[in-house]
């Protein structure tokens, strides 16, 4: 899908209370000027209206199972991961989001 079409970005972690909140804060700042809602949830409770899901590779298998057809973007490190940076860039400038 195209990054410009993303309206709701969901960050999932195990409990939905720790690392996902942290990353959501960072991405909300990065995407402040875009019309994108950034939310955080437990990996087993990904909302159906999410356009794209971001979660750590260690949880990606669970996220994919719960996300239905929603693209899941896995990342490796919590600060400055290239996959997350690519997603932010795709949302800002348009471009394909590969999941």
């Amino acid at each position: 899908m195209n990054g410009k079409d993303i309206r709701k970005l969901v960050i999932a972690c195990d409990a939905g209370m720790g690392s996902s909140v942290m990353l959501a804060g960072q991405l909300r700042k990065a995407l402040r000027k875009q019309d994108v809602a950034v939310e955080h949830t437990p990996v087993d409770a990904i909302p159906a209206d999410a356009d794209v899901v971001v979660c750590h590779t260690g949880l990606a298998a669970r996220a994919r199972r719960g996300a239905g057809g929603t693209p899941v973007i896995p990342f490796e490190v919590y600060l400055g991961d290239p996959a997350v940076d690519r997603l932010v860039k795709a949302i800002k400038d348009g471009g394909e989001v590969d999941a």
Partner: protein
Amino acid sequence: MATTYTPEPAGSGIRANIQRLGGRMAAMVMPNIGAFIAWGLITALFIPTGWLPNKELGELVDPMIKFLLPLLIGYTGGRMVHGQRGAVVGAVATVGIVVGAEVPMFLGAMITGPLAAYLLRLFDGLVQDRVRTGFEMLVDNFSAGIVGAAMAVAGNRVIGPVMNTFTEWAGDGVGWLVDHDLLPLTSLLIEPAKVLFLNNAVNHGVLGPLGVQEAAQHGKSVLFMLESNPGPGLGVLLAYWFFGPRRLRPSVPAAAVIHFFGGIHEIYFPYILMKPRMMLAAMAGGVTGVAIFVATGAGLVATPSPGSIFAYLAQTPRGAGNWVGVYTGLVASAAVSFGVGAALLGFGKLAESDPEDGDPAAGEGEGAAEESAADKSATKESTDEQTGPQEPADGAARETTAH
């Protein structure tokens, strides 16, 4: 794709299942951590050996742990299964096992709450299309009331006694480990489990409930510190900062701050996943810390969640010996993890000889495979690989520490 650092670990099916089960248990506890902390603070303050002993306020301790906390777990468990209606019957059913129980019924609440909610969900699904117009509220309220009442009775008579036995076994098991000085060895399981994102499952699903029981009897428990000790993770991160691959170093200080002060342990997991033998450093630190905690008889009053140094300070009970034990163990675990981690990273020599994260000393298949994978991706997206991770890592680091 972010697979440039590590391949997705094998066997994720089983791991995902364990994660899911443990995650569900943790998901019933974690939203209620505030209540656990409130209980911990009240206990630390008002019990006879507390900071401000007070008989009347001390009476809060027992009902909170025997009723409030299990009821919150049962309520939350029910809500996970069937929304607000599930939450209500979950709480009602939990009362059944709580009343008359000898020990705080956390495990029982984790089963009874969701089970009652599941039964109500089945019933709701069954009658959904058959209720006459105007009778919805009547049916809704009475079905919840009947399921709740039935489950409370069943819980009291059947589930309660069974869970009582289980809880006692689990407690005895931990007691056995303590008596035989084997508790430090649990770190050999706990530290790897953390990194596989089982940290919440281990801490809030297993150790926390057992620890609360112990804390209710003795005013403190070492079980709260087995998983939550931020020392090993800090040691590993510091080892990376000084001796790790050069492209990773800029991101480490911010990660260490988030880990140690913010208590978000997840941030150091990737650093171990990308160099799995660093696991040994975390394990060594964990064993050291627990050994010192046990030897000094240290303990906390409640789960320090998140596992931040600030949460530790808030949950350390009165008594100079206890403070010495907790913080000696914490510092020692960080120091040992740092030492072992630094050695495993060749004290930076490996980073000097090969800036691309290659590791001649490892020599085994794993290291070679990692290296060739890194090479491949490096040629494929060379600009992205070389400049990408470092620059944004630095930027994000500055942004995060600014807060």
